[in-house]
């Protein structure tokens, strides 16, 4: 039995300790807003915040998350920076199919929480998520808009 603090709630889960956090979120906790894209830390679709850090949950064993606050897309609007990011995402109309966007929003939230006025290089370094719909320019625009509100 592991104890996880997800979005401010403590959950007890019965699961092999090396299970990736992604699948515990999606399957044991029913939080399917976090997406599976590649499973090998390539695409960023599975990004969540672990103690505020953008983390690729497909490649992060759940046991390593014990004792650390985890924030997923489901709680993003209660995150002071995340709420601003979502508004900017809506204004910029960043998502197309949307599948990569949970991860993009989480990565942008982690970036802006530490760097409210990121340079293009900062964005480049923090936002390595793959978007097959090619929303990279819209996402960059949304990050700029969100930064203006911080």
């Amino acid at each position, binding site marked *: 039995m592991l104890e996880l603090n997800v979005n401010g709630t403590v959950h007890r889960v019965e699961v092999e300790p090396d299970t990736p956090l992604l699948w515990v979120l999606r399957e044991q906790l029913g939080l399917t807003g976090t997406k599976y894209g590649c499973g090998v830390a390539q695409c960023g679709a599975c990004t969540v915040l672990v103690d505020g850090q953008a983390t690729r949950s497909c490649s992060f064993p759940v046991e390593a998350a014990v004792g650390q606050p985890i924030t997923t897309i489901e709680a993003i609007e209660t995150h002071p920076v995340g709420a601003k990011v979502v508004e900017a*995402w809506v204004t910029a109309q960043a998502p197309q199919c949307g599948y990569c966007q949970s991860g993009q929003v989480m990565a942008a939230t982690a970036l802006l929480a530490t760097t409210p006025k990121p340079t293009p290089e900062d964005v480049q370094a923090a936002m390595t998520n793959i978007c*097959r719909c090619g929303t990279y320019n819209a*996402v960059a625009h949304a990050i700029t808009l969100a930064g203006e509100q911080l």
Partner: protein
Amino acid sequence: MEGPLAAAFSAAMPAGRPVNVSRRGMFAAAGAGLFLGLAIPGRAPRAQGAPPGAALRHAGKVTAYLRIAPDGKIHLQNPFVEGGQGIDSAVAQIVAEELDAPPADFIVTCAPPGEDFRVMQGGNARFTGGSFSVRSSFAHFRTLGAAARAMLIEAAAERLALPAASLSTEPGRVIHTESGRAIPYGELAMAAAALTPPDNPPLRDPTTYRFIGRPLPRFDVRAKSTGKITYAIDVKVDGMLLAAVVHAPRAGAQPAAVTNEAALRAMPGVHSVHRLPGAVAVVADTWWRAKTAVAQAQIAWQALQGPVMDADFTAETMLGRLKAAAGTHGNTAEEAGDAAVALTTAARVIEAEYDAPYLAHAQMEPPSATARFNADGTLDVWVPNQAPDFFQASAARAAGIEAAKIRIHSPPLGGFFGRHFAYGAANAHPQAILLAKATSRPVKVIWSREEEFARDAYRPLSYATFRAGLDASGDIVAFQAAGYGEGPITRHFGAARLGNPPIDGSIMEGLTGKPYRFATKRVEFIPVPHPPGVNLGFWRSVGHSMNDFFFESFLDEVAAATGRDPYEMRLALVAHSERHKALLNAVAGLSGGWRRGPYDAPDGTRRARGVAMASPFGSEVATIAEVSVSDGEVMVHDLWVAIDPGRVVNPRTIEEQVQSAAAIGLSSALFEEIGFERGEVTTRNFDTYRVLRRDRMPRVRVAIIESGAPMGGVGEPGTPGVPPAVANAVFALTGQRLRSMPFGRTRLSGA
């Protein structure tokens, strides 16, 4: 509607059947007081101004499409599936215009299979693809919205005991201006549903449009920004089990035995182990446990069956087969004059050959399917798909029950680009159905990313040859092009559907349909099959995805050989067409005036530009790329794209689609390629199948030209101009001619 794709789908539509498990059941369950879905005898209004015979077969079936709830929310069943292209919002925008209702009041879902939703090809076909959605349904949805509005007015007239002519509407309600009385649509919907839809409802004068042509926001952006969309992979059904599969390393091999089955069954959460056609599945209480177990399965593969892959197959093998066919006589796809004779008199002949690799769709949502057999003998299937009727038919074959007993649910797609057609072994739903049957439980199958890359239906590896005969002054007097291979149309609809002479449009479009006028021309198709074990699919912009690269690069070669400017040469070749001249002018203007270069940019890099044209899916596109070279690789700084889709429903969506289409076009130009070794796919995840990321995304600027020509598509046309514009810019900069995609394979000399 034109095009080989539409024709193939239309001819192959499963027979329309009476549907027992009707949409009506689902709609009725959704709430009370509405358009109840009474079976109103279908009549077929004609599109205003349309020629006789161009009947809109289903535009009178208001109740099949629309339900207005008492709270005023307008529920619309869309024949097309939303996957990021904005089709739910676009369709609502069109209906809202004629219904006179706020677009924001719409709730749009993908319609189930059925005759009523075949709005394409004269009311006979339905699929989401070929950039057809808006253009094929525009008249249908305008008429449908207008018919619904007339029915609401009629219902209000009865209720108020006033002549219908004295009533009008404002968004969301019927009004009687004289008395100031108003009734919201939600209160009239039930009575209106019982009325007969009018034959030829008056349509709004386009000069008074308030929604069509405006950059209205897409509906689903907030839900997509907060993780609230339920994709197929997220579907949850009570009591379901989860399944993970491994396919045979080489397509065609069948699992004879799982030698450690007992050990797998003893693993945590595992329910059962199954042998499937060409694959082994583990079913468990969670997908991760199923995946963990199936990864350890020891499988004896034998007995090649079904679509088989050659044991020694590589992509190079296939390219060799295509090249070996060069020079054989092909089927004439386009001909003007006698190019062969003209060639013999030419002062000079220029020849080149081009090729492009197999491509994966690499949509971000891996495939999945959920199947549930119900006590009443029906079957529910949730599956990402672009053509529900085809999936219903294939689910029926897998389940061994009538199609009429199957409900197909079509959730929003986490990207598609052509991935989700009925592609036989590339689909997960037959596996889900077999496993649900075997376990007597609902089962969701999810393919890992590795399984997806290994079993996608790939954009075919392709090859083309060109020959241009020039006269003494350098003008083209003979033009010959040939496309080789097999496209998804041949593979999935059969050679019998290719017409006479047989032409596979999915291999030839982009070699054909170009706007340039040559004194003589011959374009031919030379069929060469791919191994059955390589599945072939429609990939964003289909044949254009490689052919416009081939053709537009070769045209640039001719320009270079004759010392002409490639932009000026194109202008001259489209001198007969105001539309294309305007397009070239527009893209040049957008880029600050045509300048080929090379020149020094302010950042110290040496740069040059290339131009290309494409005529995909009823739209016209011109593209300019600006590049530099760094460490032997091309860096694309800017793309300028002018698109003329004839007419515009939502300019913001068009701009977004062009951005997206340009990104995937550049991705294919620079990086993408499916590899095979000994018949096995070697590029199994994003580490080896490289796609465009932020670090290589250029600025993209878009000009939309509404020429008034018949409406064309917007989802794919931005793709095919990008690879040739980039290759032509690379030539302008380095003198190196790229004749093979992806360009990343070629080290470029510095410039």
